[in-house]
């Protein structure tokens, strides 16, 4: 297909629920979820670090699962729920993982941070990582060039322990 023809075809309709809000969009098929978020949606929290699934900065939750948004064409996500960092919490009302990142200084420049946090939220939900080394392994899809890794592991472990305590308390009641 030549370029003019491809551009002349009607845009594709997609319904996406982003952070609880439904959006009915018409977009070109070659637009990735990442570029849709950072561009037209102006949801800048999702970061572009490599654009090729090699760094994890663009991690978002799609129907609760962590995904590299740079490798997803938005048109393929019709009907899904997308949660970005903005959907997890706000500066005044932070998600427990966001709070733990602040407390443990689990970042420096802050650029990989939204991806790390989305990934950590999913990791906690998945329940496969328990030990420190499992956390390290299952966070390895999120690179941090500032080298905040140990603090990130501390933050995640902290939330994990809080959740265990809450779970035990609930079980006792």
């Amino acid at each position, binding site marked *: 297909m030549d*370029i*003019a023809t491809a*551009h002349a075809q009607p845009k594709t309709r997609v319904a996406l629920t982003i952070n609880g809000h439904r959006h009915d969009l018409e977009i*070109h098929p*070659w*637009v990735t979820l990442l*570029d849709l978020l*950072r*561009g037209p949606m*102006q949801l*800048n*929290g*999702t*970061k*572009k*670090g*490599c*654009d*090729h699934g*090699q*760094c994890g*900065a663009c991690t978002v939750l799609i129907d609760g699962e962590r995904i590299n948004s740079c490798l997803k064409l938005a048109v393929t996500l019709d009907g899904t729920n997308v949660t*970005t*960092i*903005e959907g997890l*919490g*706000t*500066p005044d009302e*932070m998600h427990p993982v*966001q*709070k733990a*990142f*602040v*407390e443990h*200084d689990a*970042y*420096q*420049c*802050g*650029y*990989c*941070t*939204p991806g790390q946090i989305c990934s950590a939220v999913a990791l906690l939900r998945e329940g496969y990582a328990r030990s420190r*080394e499992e*956390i*390290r*392994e299952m*966070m*390895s899809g*999120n*690179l*941090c*060039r*500032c*080298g*905040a*890794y*140990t*603090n*990130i592991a501390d933050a995640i472990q902290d939330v994990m322990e809080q959740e265990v305590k809450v779970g035990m308390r609930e079980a006792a009641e």
Partner: protein
Amino acid sequence: MLNEKPVFGFPLPRIDGPLKVTGTAPYAAEYHAPGMLFGYAAQATIASGRIASIDTAEAEAYPGVAKVYTHKNRPSVAWRDKKWKDEVALPGHPFRPLENDRILFGGQPVALVVAESFEAARDAAELIRIEYHPDEPHTDITVERAKSYVPPEARKDSMVPTDPRGDAEGAYEAAPFKIDVEYLQQGEHHNPMELFASTAIRNEDGTLTVYDKTQGSQNSHDYVCNVFGLKPENVRVVNAYVGGAFGSGLRPKHQLFFAVMASLDLKRSVKVEMSRSEMFYLTWRPATIQRMQFAANADGTLASVRHHAIQATSLREDYQENVVNWSGLTYKCDNVKLSYELAKTTMSTPGDMRAPGAATAFLALESAMDELAYEVGMDPLEFRGKNFVSYDQNDDLQITSKELDTCYRVGAERFGWDKRSHEPGSMRDGNDLIGWGVATGVWEATLTQAEAKVRLFPDGKITVMAAASDIGTGTYTILAQVAAQELGQPADRVSVLIGDSTLPKTSVEGGSWTAASSGSAVQAGCMEIRKTLLSLAQKMDNHPFGNAPVEELAIRDNRLVLDRNDQMGLSIADILGHHGMSSVEGHGKVAPDQEQAKKYTSFTHGAVFVEVRIDAELGVPRVTRVVSAIDAGRIINPKTARSQILGGVVMGLGMALHEEGMIDHRTGRIMNHNLAEYHVPAHADVHDIDVIFIEEEDKMASPIGVKGLGEIGIIGVGAAVANAIFHATGTRHRHFPITIDKIMEGLPQ
């Protein structure tokens, strides 16, 4: 709660943290404007030669493309080299994008597509057809060393090798223990997580606000004004949040030029964001060869030190680092000869990367010291202690503070160094060969010229303003802490405005000098406020201060009080109210003390201890423990300070084990120009890291007693890892990075 705690030394969580963790801190590419255009660069696919032809017709016809720029239609810009030289420019000719048909380095930007959408710009850029007349690339330092030269113009005086002292050759020949070895380190790439980007917003009045990924908003501002002939007041550059840089953002990069060029030409707002692969061709830590001829006497004292380094640079600029001088000042030695040369390559101009010069130097210096310790038969830590020196022998200067010996002692205790057995390969746990290595690190503690404004309001709120940058270093937070400390307020009352060229003058953010310099400027501004408050108060009737000098005053609970009796005082609101003022401002300035510099010099120091475990058959390395003991003067914030060291250590692990730009020397292309094949450490590579600060307030290094933290954490880490690998396996690796294959081939049989 914060009110009750001393603000200095308190591990205050970053004040910009809630914005960063919620994705609401905007970085350079995250500003939007109606009608904004998007730029995307096309890069040369050869490393040397000329463009024979460039056909942009197909790209121009791509739906949504506004314009394609090449060397043939680049708008007119400054002609003289001087206009292109930024604050930290190098000897030589700065790179000018799209200047002519010449290709000076691989990946050079050769065209810019500007379009209505990011996708259109990116996709049209693929349609530009370029034919080249290629020349032979020159990218292999091991070949180009044959044409090495002493740089005719020094980048800085401190980078010129110190004059020889004693008789290095004679002492070497006479000494009983000696080594003569060569180290090779491949080029590294900064790879901050944020892609380089500039968003040039065209304001209604035709002025520009440029959001730039830079380590110096004022440096970018001046560059833009000079290159495009713009009035300073018509350009504002903002870098409020910087997604890492590590030196790569010190000099203006081509995306800044492109965004401003297109915005001025098309009279629209323009955003240009690089691709990750583009960033591999931007700048780099240069490949380096170091020859170390070291000798020791029978008692383990150093007899002779000769250090010769050859570093890669580009065709048009003489990038230089202080590599060899470290070998003349780290240990006591009376026979020293240092030399430094460059080799031209068809690569982009190298740039400062975390601890430029020192990170490279100590890789070789501290490996060589380990080699010599083993020649002498002395414990490597003891050998270092034996050669401790308390002054700077290169320039015969006193050192303002040096707690390196304490770093050795405390670090060794924490690490358990006394349980180390000397012989390589002698420590084993199942399949793991265990190795323990140590290395020293030294970095210059620098104070640069800096200014800051501080404003105190009647309710105790404070605003701090400086053009300083926070590239992840914690600048926002520590400047708040300094102001809070000096004006007796809790830190949460302080707003910090930085990262904006319109704010008080500050150098680029680099060299570990920001906390010392901008922190001291803020302190000076606060002092001015206290003086002003006192003089205002002393004009009031019945004030309690008599003729007390400002040094006897304090601010507590929003009152200006006598330090020895805080019942005696006046509220700030009353003082300002009495004079009809809504706030009081102080303007702080600091500059290096030239008189002091004739007698003294300042350094940060560190001792880093590393445990590696290596699979005895397969050579898989794991760095399982790191203890980093650091002497960096006063620590304003132990939380962010610790993070700086952690970051340095992690980048040092990458330097030791993983990081290398793999160049196809036939074409000059970097073949692993992506984050899948250029390996920076991942979570799984990094075990816990123990950071210890040996605190000492060094008021000669900087008025606030700070010596700086950004670089010292990485220095020595690479050598400590290499030394640990030697201890584990008995094989000395002199080619970095030490990848798994090299380790496997060096395993004991």
